[in-house]
């Protein structure tokens, strides 16, 4: 067994060395793997993925490997799409709290979280081996309007190409934590009033006024830009739904941990939910909620809310959710294609299918097996992480 493992490691090492040393010349890559979890066409056993120019050219069971292609032979491995962390705050300055929560201004709609992001920070480098290939970098929950989240690929080695969406939407919060004692709003009623005022003013905004804050909110009010609304408790979710209804927003609920208690209300409005990491709760009744809310027909994507929990534990969330009642297929989707769809990048990410970006994770063991180690991570066809034998 060990010999086999060493051999396959050697093969990967050699192949990837060739790949890495081939310089800027794009080369066709063929990955042969024991199990390919496509997330679009089921699981392919002993299948092949053909990658060219950073995109998936083909995937299937019996596919011809093109001439001159580099072959990565991994018969014992599982391959899945690169995971997507739907909401987190990595790569920001040391005092994370200060960066993600603008405490002076309650409404910070024009702030772009990407401005505080350091693409070369240790955080980002460390995150490369987590199996998470794309993240939604987002503001926190302490502002009624927190700023603009961005969809970002974790391979920041090149100057550009890693920002998929600079302004993915606008972040809102109706959480109790957005209420401060030294600046408004100081009460939920005050918070709701503030939001209504902002959105009303945004409605009446005209381009000539040149107000970036109003401008981006106008796009939200016109449902051209999604509103990502932090709401955890049932009453907070209810407040969020009120705003959504009043303004007809295209919205996503963030960290709706108690969403299962009002799942029918959420499902009725077809709102997806970015689910908080399960390791934040340790009580059985809380761990069961993910299964319950999905069971009521609400679309879920998992998030780490890093650094609240570690980025690596995105998969842990999914596995724990399955342990406490979520079905396996939904769990895998919530790590990949669901997140891509919710973030509006499913044309490029979320599944191993033709035309999509070659963002892949290779695991030794099945994805929903917590003991499976991450052997290799690929973004845009480039290997960004590979496990070293100690």
């Amino acid at each position, binding site marked *: 067994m060990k010999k086999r493992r060493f051999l396959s490691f050697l093969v990967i090492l050699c192949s990837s060395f060739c790949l890495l040393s081939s310089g800027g010349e794009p080369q066709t890559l063929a990955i042969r793997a024991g199990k390919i979890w496509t997330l679009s066409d089921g699981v392919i056993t002993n299948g092949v993925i053909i990658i060219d120019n950073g995109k998936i050219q083909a995937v299937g069971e019996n596919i011809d490997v093109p001439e001159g292609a580099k072959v990565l032979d991994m018969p014992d491995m599982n391959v899945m799409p690169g995971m997507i962390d739907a909401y987190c705050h990595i790569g920001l300055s040391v005092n994370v709290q200060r960066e993600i929560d603008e405490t002076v201004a309650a409404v910070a709609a024009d702030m772009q979280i990407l401005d505080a992001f350091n693409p070369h920070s240790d955080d980002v480098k460390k995150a490369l081996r987590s199996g998470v290939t794309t993240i939604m970098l987002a503001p926190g929950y302490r502002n009624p309007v927190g700023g603009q989240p961005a969809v970002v690929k974790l391979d920041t080695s090149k100057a550009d190409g890693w920002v998929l969406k600079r302004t993915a939407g606008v972040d809102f919060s109706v959480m109790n934590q957005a209420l401060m004692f030294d600046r408004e709003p100081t009460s939920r009623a005050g918070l709701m009033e503030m939001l209504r005022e902002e959105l009303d003013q945004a409605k009446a905004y005209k381009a000539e006024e040149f107000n970036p804050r109003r401008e981006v909110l106008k796009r939200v009010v016109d449902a051209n830009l999604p509103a990502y609304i932090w709401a955890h408790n049932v009453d907070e979710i209810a407040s969020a739904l009120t705003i959504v209804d009043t303004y007809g927003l295209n919205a996503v609920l963030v960290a709706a941990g108690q969403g299962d208690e009002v799942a029918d209300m959420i499902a009725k409005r077809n709102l997806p939910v970015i689910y908080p990491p399960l390791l934040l709760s340790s009580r059985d009744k809380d761990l069961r909620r993910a299964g319950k809310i999905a069971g009521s027909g609400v679309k879920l994507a998992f998030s780490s809310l890093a650094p609240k929990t570690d980025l690596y534990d995105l998969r842990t969330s999914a596995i724990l959710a399955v342990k406490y009642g979520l079905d396996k297929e939904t769990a895998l989707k919530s790590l990949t294609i669901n997140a891509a769809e919710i973030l509006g990048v499913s044309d490029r990410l979320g599944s191993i299918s033709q035309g999509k970006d070659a963002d892949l994770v290779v695991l030794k063991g099945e994805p929903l097996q*917590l*003991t499976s*180690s991450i052997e290799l991570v690929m973004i845009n066809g480039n290997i960004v992480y590979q496990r070293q034998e100690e």
Partner: protein
Amino acid sequence: MKDIKGIVVFASLFLQVLSAGALGAEQVAIQGGTILPISGAAIENGIVLIENGKIAAIGRNVAVPMDVRSIDASDKFVMPGLIDVQSRLFVIESEFNEGRSIAPELNILDGLDPFIKEAPEVAAQGVTAVYITPAGRSLIGGSGAVLKLNGSNDVGRMLLKGDIAVKATIGVSANNQSSSLGRLAQYSSIREALLSTKIYMHQREKHAREMAEYNKKRAEYEKKKQVRPTEKVEKPKRPDRFRPNPTREVLAKVLSKEIPLQIEAHRVTDILNAIRLADEFGFTLILDKCTEGYLVADEIARSKADVVLGPVTVSFVETPRLEYRNHDVRNAAILSKRGIKLALGVSGRDGASSKFVALAASIAVANGMDKDLALRAVTLTLAEILGVADRIGSLDVGKDADIVILSGHPLDTLSRVEMVLIEGKTVFERKDKQ
């Protein structure tokens, strides 16, 4: 003569049968399935025989008495109960306010509330024992204790063993602020405390000698008085009372290696300082948390200190905290490959997070730790480090029958715990058959 002998033999046999019958209720046999004793190789289709709360026999060919309560474990896994070595179960919130810097005489049992309701959930995940230490704000806090989750409302009846180790901390930040000067001061304070304990031990010994001397002289004096009551004899002077200092008494036990000193240290310098203290004073060292241990694995291996590592993933604690900045989830794998004796803990946000013991072990495996060692790190190795391996930690004859039966391998997070026994008594049984 023969008749009497016959009667005696018959009578004794009869009595034996009777007593066996009476104790028959205390006999349980777990049959079928894969047994993971931890102390040895797995046993397929094995049998575990339990008598009076202890493991009486284990193996493939075990004679199972007639009227024994039988548990069918076919297609299941049978293993010893899991232990969380960094648990907060039962600890009352107020105990985290204990700010006195040096107070090892504090007893963690005083700070526990057995009526806290999180225990059943934890037991339902196969955790049969927890090691609880005073929270890490004191420089030298009290001693930790191991409790069994047998559902009792009485701390005394849950207690397996107290005074496991004295807990100390070097370099833990307060309010996420830490300074090298501050940490140096902490190190010095601990060192000073140990030095003054040495002096105390000398004084105590001196007093003991003086008392022995006095008692001898006193006996002589009594004798003389008896023989010659009228003669003037000098009465020996009783030495002043020696007031035992509770703090120093506990630290004396550490210095005489009766109990280990468990030092929580995160950064490299703090870990090295802890090892330096152990070198200087010769006590048994347990390194707790050991966050940056992977950077000084060689030094730790050389020092022969045991390591209680946790949290395996930072997700278990409130982040961001300064001391976890260089936390690496591969820490366990690296340390264990160096041959360091390792236990894994959850070190979670609250008492209920102790249920994630198996999860913690699985994460360690995913990041390079050997499967068997990881499983041992939450059972036998853990028990050995805590000094309770005579009672728990593996399925061996003579140990307590603290057993977990699972639907699959314990490191497969999706396995379900079917049944949990503590000392042969069922404390959990899964009801819903999905």
